[in-house]
């Protein structure tokens, strides 16, 4: 016979046990099962670029791996380094739980150089997806055989070294700025020659019109393999499997730079909506289809989701702001 107090306690234990049991059943369902019924993916750029491709491949995998039950739609809001799409995400799409926007390091820079009124801090970070590493190369007939040769000449007479790369304030420019700082050249002394689009920069390199060049490895991979360009360093932390180029770090230059891409959601969504989006991207990342997309496009897996990704975005923002200030592109 149980005393009333004991009975109350045992009822309490039973309740607690059943609660734990129910929670135990629900939690994994929340972690794995609950994904949005449908999804819209905003590519804040024109069709064809890296952000657009990321959006369209994600759409394909969400469908083919049956991760999202309903429709998955991709739409483009191009312009101003993605900050037009960002402005829309933060204002008119506020609270929309079925939307993510592709973002990346390029947008971090564009927000600063364009003096955008909205920033990534106002979004709800979901996940980091891919990375492409930058390569530093010289024309095949260049006198610079190694990174040391190039950096020595750079230190002696910074303006005599012309660096080809993408648009001013972009990832390529940021890398040259970091490099200058690291070897003790004032970033404002860098003779950086921006080219629009990868093609023109590559042509200038192959024609020997510039001293050195910086770009995403994938863009020049074929020319490096064919021996038309000499790669001096890659910006990954460790050597990338299958790419026989020494990292900056192993050559004594302490810089690591990944041109990463990820997804963020609008502000003002509920915790459940945020978790559902994270679940969806966790499952995307785990699918064999996505792994195949990474291989086919030469993208490195750089997955990180939730709070850890939010912290990463903050770090990147601080680092990029500092460099752009020194180059003279940030107020």
């Amino acid at each position, binding site marked *: 016979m149980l005393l009333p107090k004991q009975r109350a306690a045992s009822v309490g234990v039973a309740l607690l046990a059943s609660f734990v049991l129910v929670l135990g059943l629900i939690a994994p369902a929340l972690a794995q099962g609950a994904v949005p019924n449908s999804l819209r993916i905003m590519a804040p750029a024109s*069709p*064809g670029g890296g952000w657009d491709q990321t959006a369209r491949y994600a759409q394909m995998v969400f469908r083919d791996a049956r991760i999202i039950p309903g429709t998955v739609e991709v739409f483009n809001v*191009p312009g101003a380094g993605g900050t037009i799409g960002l402005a829309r995400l933060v204002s008119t799409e506020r609270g929309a739980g079925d939307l993510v926007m592709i973002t990346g390091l390029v947008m971090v820079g564009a927000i600063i150089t*364009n003096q955008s009124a909205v920033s990534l801090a106002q979004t709800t970070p979901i996940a980091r997806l891919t990375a492409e590493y930058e390569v530093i190369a010289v024309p095949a007939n260049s006198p610079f055989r190694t990174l040391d040769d190039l950096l020595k000449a750079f230190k002696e007479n910074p303006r005599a070294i012309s660096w080809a790369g993408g648009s*001013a304030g972009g990832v390529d420019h940021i890398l040259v700025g970091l490099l200058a700082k690291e070897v003790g050249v004032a970033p404002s002394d860098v*003779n950086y020659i921006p080219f629009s689009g990868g093609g023109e920069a*590559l042509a200038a390199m192959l024609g020997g019109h510039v001293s050195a060049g910086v770009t995403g490895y994938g863009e020049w991979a074929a020319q490096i393999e064919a021996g038309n360009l000499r790669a001096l360093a890659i910006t990954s932390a460790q050597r990338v499997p299958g790419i026989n180029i020494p990292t900056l770090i192993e050559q004594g230059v302490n810089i690591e730079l990944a041109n990463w891409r990820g997804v963020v959601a609008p502000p003002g969504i509920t915790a459940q909506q945020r978790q559902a989006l994270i679940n969806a991207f966790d499952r995307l990342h785990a699918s064999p289809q996505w792994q195949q997309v990474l291989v*086919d496009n030469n993208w490195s897996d750089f997955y990180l989701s939730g709070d850890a990704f939010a912290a990463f975005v903050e770090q990147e923002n601080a680092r990029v702001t500092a460099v752009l200030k020194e180059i003279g*592109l940030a107020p």
Partner: protein
Amino acid sequence: METLGMLLDGFSVALTWNNLLWALVGVTLGTIVGILPGIGPALTVALLLPVTFGRDPIGSFIMFAGIYYGGMYGGSTTAILLNTPGESASIITALEGNIMARRGRGGAALATAAIGSFVAGTLATVGLTFLAPVLVQVALKFGPADYFALMVLAFTAVTSLLGSSLLRGMTSLFFGMALGLVGIDLQTGQARYTLGMLEMLDGIDVVIVAIGLFAVGEALYAASRHGRVASDVIPVKDSIWMTKEDWRRSVGPWLRGALLGFPLGALPAGGAEIPTFLSYSLERRLSRHKDEFGKGAIEGVAGPEAANNAAAAGVLVPLLTLGIPTSATAAIMLAAFQQFGLNPGPLLFQNRPDLVWGLIASLYIGNVMLLVLNLPLVGLWVRLLSVPAPYLYGGILVFAALGTYSLNHSWVDLATLFVVGIVGFIMRRCDFPVAPAVIGLILGPLAEQQLRRALAISQGDYSVFFTRPISATLLAIAFVALVGPAIVRFVSGRRRRAGAMAA
């Protein structure tokens, strides 16, 4: 002839039923998107790219190439009929082509554009087949200083478009160049004249300005005169086809257009617009019917249309041999190659000769298909011109607005279109030529970037423009083109006066 053998192998790939079907799908799609302003071949290929994931790369590329070539054919149709160029390489076509159409010669204009595209496209494909490896080595020699000199040469083409008044023509040119300053300056990353609007950071789209100045300005002008003056659009008269005279006057421009377009298209920073400017001014200088220019000269359609199609083939030279994309469509085709795990370049010719030569062979086939597809359409298109003017211009306005909005889905673009349209109306009303404005907008920013790039590389030394052989030669040609006619006029004037005195 090793190349010939490989080309024949290519035809055996391209002539399978499957691949012929892909080519037909591609050229049909391309013609359609070329006609619609705003939707270009680049966008179309980008949207189709994920669909082809995991499918046969050869068929996919044959389709993409068909879209690319088809877009160039289609672009001229709206330029000629509606004065609404679908893309920037067709802007020059609109100048004489639309005047021809309004004088009842639309059929001949469309036919010379289609046949010229076929002739130049085929010649340029022959060039691609046999000259690509040589040409690309020459193209790489072009540095920023040389490009700047090329832009200067292209600027001299403006002299043939200034109209009756030098002051008005130059005003129009500088208006275009001023518009070209809007947006982020590529060299420094600083915003210029954006009025604090994010939407202005990427600058003002050339196609929007062209449609605004040409089509909207034209429609407003027509509306302002409606009822007061009889419609100036004459429906098709006589035969819709080219006369013997038309043929004789078109052949030369086609061939010269192809010769200009192909190598300039192959330059990594050349593009398809510059050869159309140069072709127009060259034809005007060479023509025996100089007085007809500005009033619907068929040479002014035949030359630039041939040039832009040849340039389209030229773009494939750096793409296939080096993996250098030089146009928006080429950039997306490069992404497509990478999706299939292929890297364009010398290795591609060795590793996948079936794909490269199959693709090149399909270009010959696509050109024939486009001619067969487009010539019968001429008869259909010209009937558009018998639509009464109010409906026709109303339709043009809808078409222009739709096309503009579909570019970026931005209201700012629409506002720009109509503001520029009103400017175009005023310019027309006050007899300012609009073409120089468009040329200023295209060439101004290109010339500025190349000039500053060249000076940054030379660390401020201006002598690079005169010490580099390519640059010096181009500048010398530009000088002759600019000053030559004046000297000839001066000398012949003196001789005539001397003759008169002697007599």
